[in-house]
């Protein structure tokens, strides 16, 4: 268990993506089968154990340590699993904090699989006695059903691919043909067996992505235009007997949107935008803010599904039956997609319309006039483009709506992470209320150049008026021009507003703070 618990600890403390990948790869190369397969299952969220309730864990510890000391400890530490892992009394005669090596990850998983819910606490307690604090923490996290080490399934798979010099998309293709502990996958990765056959399984295909449009115009004879919707990009993979939904990162999000998965029974792979219907917009797509209510939930109540009904606006058709359409020109795929629409549940699927514009100037006018909350901009797709993974030059462009901007005053600053850990690079900024107070409206940590970052860092250090732990409050004198995609009502900030994707557009050293924008003015931009 120790290699796995050490991996989890290191993932918690490592901030950089490359650092995490290196850790996962090193573990997967070194650990034995089937431990590493179970670890991969845990990291990708595919380890389904009968979850032990946290109340049962609370009872376990109260039976073993003074409840008063437990409460004091929990207050201090915060997290239940961590408190119990640290507090767990050492069996008599054993040195504290020793993983005696008798438990492998596979043994732990087997025992948790085999136990009933009633017997689980005893089985758990018995295992706790053989582990050190990190091992106990890992065990409790496994048993309660959530590792929460801040990595996506895609990142774990990328770590696997990196460990064995494979292409992550090849791993992705075979992934859903396999199940934990993925022995066939490791056999293939280490050259002991042929590549597993993914046929008939609903696996993820990498998305085709777009470059930002930088040219002044494109010829609409070559490019078709369609709206860029502000939801989440989704891939629907149906085999006829099973349907899965994948996010852009390749995470399986079927469980978060069960009504969509249930509504698709065909045998095809589709690309689209997941949106929710907002009643205040006459049943049209609502803003991203509404969709956020549905994201990141493992289980969704009927209430959630009713309040925020999801649907998919379709962009593309990748496979129809067993026929792979990805090499065909976009125009032909589009025609096939349109022909498919009548067979789909109209309450859950509609077609992303093509914008009819005679020329590029007319398209620019249409784009400028778009006020729909769910429109993020315009997509330009070469009519003859095949569907290829990733961003390929000159095939697809995204032409985002011009961002909104506001002049805000810097209020607080915090240090960044990783390479920026010595720089004050995260800024909270505010706008003026009618009473002449500054209320925070957002937080940004990008948009500036390295030179500007150095200047901002110096400004923060020289203008600090108070410190709250890691946060510095600064003299309210610096105006930042903040660009953002949209703004919504939110309880996060005192102003009652929150920006979507705010970034520092310019440092307005020339502008007096008193002339920055007002909260009232910003509120008018809420759509």
């Amino acid at each position, binding site marked *: 268990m120790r290699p796995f618990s050490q991996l989890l600890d290191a993932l918690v403390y490592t901030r950089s993506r490359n650092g995490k990948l290196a850790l996962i790869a090193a573990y997967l190369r070194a650990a034995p089968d089937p431990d590493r397969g179970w670890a991969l299952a845990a990291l990708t969220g595919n380890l389904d154990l009968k979850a032990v309730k946290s109340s049962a864990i609370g009872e376990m510890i109260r039976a073993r340590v003074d409840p008063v000391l437990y409460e004091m400890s929990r207050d201090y530490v915060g997290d239940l699993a*961590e*408190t119990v892992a*640290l*507090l767990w009394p050492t069996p008599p005669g054993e040195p504290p904090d020793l993983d005696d090596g008798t438990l492998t990850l596979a043994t732990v998983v087997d025992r948790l699989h085999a136990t009933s819910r009633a017997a689980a606490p005893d089985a758990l307690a018995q295992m706790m006695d053989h582990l050190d604090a990190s091992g106990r923490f890992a065990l409790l996290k496994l048993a309660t059903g959530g590792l929460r080490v801040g990595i996506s399934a895609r990142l774990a798979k990328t770590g696997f691919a990196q460990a064995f010099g494979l292409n992550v998309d090849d791993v992705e293709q075979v992934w859903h043909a396999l199940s934990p502990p993925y022995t066939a996958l490791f056999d293939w990765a280490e050259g002991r067996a042929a590549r597993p056959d993914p046929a008939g399984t609903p696996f993820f295909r990498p998305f085709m992505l777009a470059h930002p449009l930088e040219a002044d115009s494109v010829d609409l004879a070559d490019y078709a235009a369609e709206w860029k919707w502000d939801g989440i990009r989704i891939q629907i993979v149906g085999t006829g007997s099973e349907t899965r939904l994948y996010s852009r990162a390749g995470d399986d999000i079927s469980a978060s949107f069960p009504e969509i998965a249930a509504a698709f029974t065909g045998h095809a792979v589709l690309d689209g935008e997941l949106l929710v219907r907002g009643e205040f917009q006459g049943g049209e797509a609502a803003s991203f803010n509404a969709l956020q209510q549905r994201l990141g939930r493992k289980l969704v109540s009927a209430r959630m599904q009713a309040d925020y009904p999801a649907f998919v606006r379709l962009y593309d058709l990748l496979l129809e039956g067993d026929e792979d359409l990805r090499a065909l020109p976009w125009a032909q795929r589009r025609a096939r997609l349109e022909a498919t629409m009548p067979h789909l549940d109209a309450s859950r699927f509609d077609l992303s319309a093509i914008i009819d514009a005679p020329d590029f100037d007319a398209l620019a006018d249409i784009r400028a006039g778009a006020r729909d909350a769910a429109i993020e901009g315009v997509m330009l797709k070469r009519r003859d483009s095949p569907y290829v993974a990733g961003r390929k030059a000159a095939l697809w462009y995204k032409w985002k709506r011009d961002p909104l901007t506001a002049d805000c005053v810097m209020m607080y600053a915090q240090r960044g*992470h990783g390479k920026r850990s010595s720089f004050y690079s995260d800024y909270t900024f505010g706008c003026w209320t009618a009473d002449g107070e500054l209320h925070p409206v957002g937080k940004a940590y990008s948009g500036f150049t390295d030179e500007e970052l150095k200047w901002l860092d110096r400004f923060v250090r020289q203008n600090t008026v108070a410190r709250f*732990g890691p946060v510095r409050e600064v003299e309210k004198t610096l105006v930042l021009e903040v660009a953002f995609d949209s703004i919504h009502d939110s309880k996060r900030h005192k102003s009652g507003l929150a920006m979507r994707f705010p970034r520092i557009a310019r440092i307005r050293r020339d502008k007096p703070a008193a002339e920055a924008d007002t909260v009232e003015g910003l509120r008018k931009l809420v759509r």
Partner: protein
Amino acid sequence: MAHWIEPHPTGIYVRPADAWIDPSVPRERALVTHGHADHARGGHGHVWATRETLAIMALRYGTASGTPVGYGEEIRLGGVTIRYVPAGHVLGSAQIVLTHAGERVVVTGDYKRRPDPTCLPFEPVPCDIFVTEATFGLPVFRHPDTGSEIDRLLAALHANPDRSVLVGAYALGKAQRVICELRARGHHDPIYLHGAMERMCNLYVELGVEMGDLRPATGVAAKDMRGAIIVAPPSALNDRWSRRLPDPITAMASGWMRVRQRARQKNVELPLILSDHADWDELTDTIREVAPTETWITHGREEALLHWCMTHQIRARALALVGRDDEEEG
């Protein structure tokens, strides 16, 4: 009991000797347990402390009038017999054992029970009143084996030959202990020091603590510190100073690193649980061992230790001493 000794917010007053133990404000006569700033203040009239503690105070506050007291040596002040006994906390640290009117009081200052290559081990002294610290007075604090923590540091160093490991460690005690533990584990490469560490390390060497090849980090090109360990005070870890280092892995040696959130808050990538204070088991075992009639708890998480004493039939009280800062040193 022991009415001749009085806890005050600014220190412990020994009435017949007219002297204060670790006073936080300048006093005419001060008995000082060890050199950390929250115990040893500047500006006292006359100080009794170990030779090492006096040297540390002289380095920090300039020369002061002081009487060195050797470990085990007995001195008498106003009818009180006073003995300094090793506390195992840092170089020169002592418990102060006071005997008067047939009663014995032990004031530990700060202490730990596990081995430390830079100082003599804690010596338990049975007593009537045991005045203990409680920095890590919660049962979640159980420090792991020192060797395994040092091994984790060396493993990170060897796994990243193009980077460096920057270890945050308190400038007095922890820094030198980490260096000595590294040497004991066979690491003999040069270790680079933040400027704030140099004078204290030099003093340790003068006082006979061998630490091998130590070099100032200032003025050394980043590429020359690849694959090296650099020791700095915790406050320098995420500060501008560290920008000069080659892609440092940020480590921190402290008992607080036992709690994940504490480590994450400090942006630490490699938390090393390494403390100069007694952990929960050491605190409770020590109280059992010296078997006092009464336990006084000076500073830390005293509520939990008070509760433990109460449930173990040991009379105890918490002293509200001011100015005890346990956050940085840990």
